[in-house]
């Protein structure tokens, strides 16, 4: 696994460095995954939907930091520059050539439309040139597969909590391709709340790691922030919590920022963990897993696994680099999708509001 800015872009033309083999000598299904739905340009090669041969992620976080959030036009331009060099690196690291691939999968939505189109256009061009199937992948479906990719033995029915800057949802996975939405946020996504509170507290961008860090020195029980909808169903609401933080700081200007960060984080994590274990109990899940960028949060990881242990249910959290946006999960989801439904048509476009449910 590689993370961070790509090392000096490999020369991708001419490509004498990639060892070439006979195109048909590879019986093993290799899928190239491409992810450009937000601010990570990512390409990966995954074998059989389970073995990551390479996973290159070029994060644009530095490009967007000064704007305090992802700027779609800036993201689209960066994807256009980075996608082919990142692809070259993913193929070289995996030690395969394009013609050995069984399919090319790309995120077609949800996400930023201009950013998605870069990945979709390149993926379809690769598929056409290498004469392999193109597979359209839903970004959220891919987050579901992050856990299965690292822990193929997770038993169905599996409940997955996806928490990121754009989404907060509890999904029951009954089988490959068979999902049920158990609950989702009614307003802000959890990651969005982290970003907004971090900005308000002057902790910088992105908010997730900033709050995680600041909270290390704070007392999570210092301030009793509300746990919205704690006992009502499996849906979430985080906008009231953000308002509570703002009000508390305005009323107590001398309050310790570390305490606010720690107490805010504790309130979010409490609700996420509480609803996840209730969802698992409701549907009789055999396993519980996490996905999405917020799953990198230290406190959430601790409490989530603790709750699974208490409840005697198999719990799994993917590695941090698999929780945040990456292309290995796209390749894995694409592989399973291709087995079920076959290739996607070459006139597929991007669908920025693509939904995992009622499609």
């Amino acid at each position: 696994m590689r993370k961070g800015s790509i090392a000096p872009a490999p020369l991708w033309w001419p490509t004498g460095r990639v060892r070439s083999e006979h195109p048909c000598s590879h019986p093993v299904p290799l899928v190239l995954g491409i992810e450009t739905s937000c601010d990570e340009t990512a390409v990966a090669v995954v074998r059989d939907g389970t073995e990551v041969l390479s996973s290159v992620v070029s994060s644009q976080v530095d490009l967007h930091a000064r704007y305090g959030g992802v700027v779609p036009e800036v993201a689209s331009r960066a994807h256009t520059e980075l996608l082919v060099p990142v692809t070259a690196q993913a193929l070289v690291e995996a030690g395969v050539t394009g013609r050995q691939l069984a399919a090319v999968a790309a995120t077609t939505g949800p996400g930023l439309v201009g950013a998605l189109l870069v990945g979709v256009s390149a993926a379809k061009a690769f598929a056409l040139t290498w004469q392999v199937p193109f597979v359209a992948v839903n970004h959220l479906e891919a987050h579901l597969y992050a856990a299965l990719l690292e822990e193929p033995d997770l038993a169905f029915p599996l409940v997955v909590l996806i928490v990121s800057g754009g989404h907060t949802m509890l999904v029951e996975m009954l089988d490959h391709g068979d999902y049920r939405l158990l609950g989702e946020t009614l307003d802000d996504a959890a990651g969005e709340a982290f970003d907004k509170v971090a900005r308000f507290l002057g902790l910088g961008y992105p908010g997730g790691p900033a709050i995680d860090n600041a909270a290390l020195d704070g007392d999570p029980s210092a301030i009793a922030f509300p746990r919205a909808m704690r006992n009502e169903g499996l849906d979430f609401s985080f906008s009231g919590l953000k308002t509570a933080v703002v009000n508390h700081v305005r009323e107590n200007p001398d309050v310790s920022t570390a305490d606010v960060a720690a107490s805010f984080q504790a309130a979010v994590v409490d609700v996420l963990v509480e609803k996840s274990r209730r969802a698992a109990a409701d549907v009789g899940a055999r396993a519980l897993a996490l996905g999405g960028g917020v799953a990198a949060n230290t406190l959430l990881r601790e409490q989530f696994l603790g709750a699974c242990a208490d409840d005697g249910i198999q719990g799994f959290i993917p590695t941090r680099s698999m929780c945040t946006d990456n292309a290995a999960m796209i390749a894995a989801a694409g592989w399973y999708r291709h087995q079920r439904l076959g290739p996607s048509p070459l006139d597929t476009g991007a669908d920025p509001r693509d939904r995992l449910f009622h499609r």
Partner: protein
Amino acid sequence: MLLLGIETATEQVGCAIGGHEGVLASAHCAKGRRHAENLTPQIEFICGQAGIELSDIGLVAVDVGPGLFTGLRVGVSAAKAIAFALSIPMIGVSSLDLLAFTVRYSPRLIVAAIDARRGELYHGFYRQVPGGVQRLSAQQLGTPDDLASELLATNEEVLLVGDGARRYAEVFDGLARVELAEIGNGFPSASSLVQLAHPRAMREEFEQPEAIQPLYLRRPDAEINWSTRHR
């Protein structure tokens, strides 16, 4: 050598295949701004019509703009992907050069103008030369009114071409010595792209694929706002 040309700078999606014998096949669709949806199937179609495999292509030429940002990114991303997948060289061509090339037999001053939205145009000035046209100055972004004043100041017979010229026809129509080219020349053509790139390919005037990027001529709004705030 066979060339594949990809052109997505305007509302139109175009692609063409050609070589020594000229253009073998081409497809253009100006309906619905479906760049990402149409491009790959169109390339597949013209390969079939020309009776070749995509792997027979020896060079990818791409219209790098200026033009619609999203369209450009679709075309440039696909072109680079194909060039990378086949390990073949690339040539980038300006959308305004392509427009001017279609009316190259006119002795007048040729002005190519592409709609840049937000009340602005991308434009360039050209003069007929043996075998094509020569750009006289840098490609620019400006308002139709500014362009109209510039045209008046030249005191020359002008042929104005492109969807930008047509969109602001009312600004240019009344100008003396200025004529708007017919609508058939409104968009850059992938066939012209192949024709223009072919001699360059023969002279091996390739570009590093990394260097081939959309020509935006306009910074992202966020960047403009940020630099005004932080001056």
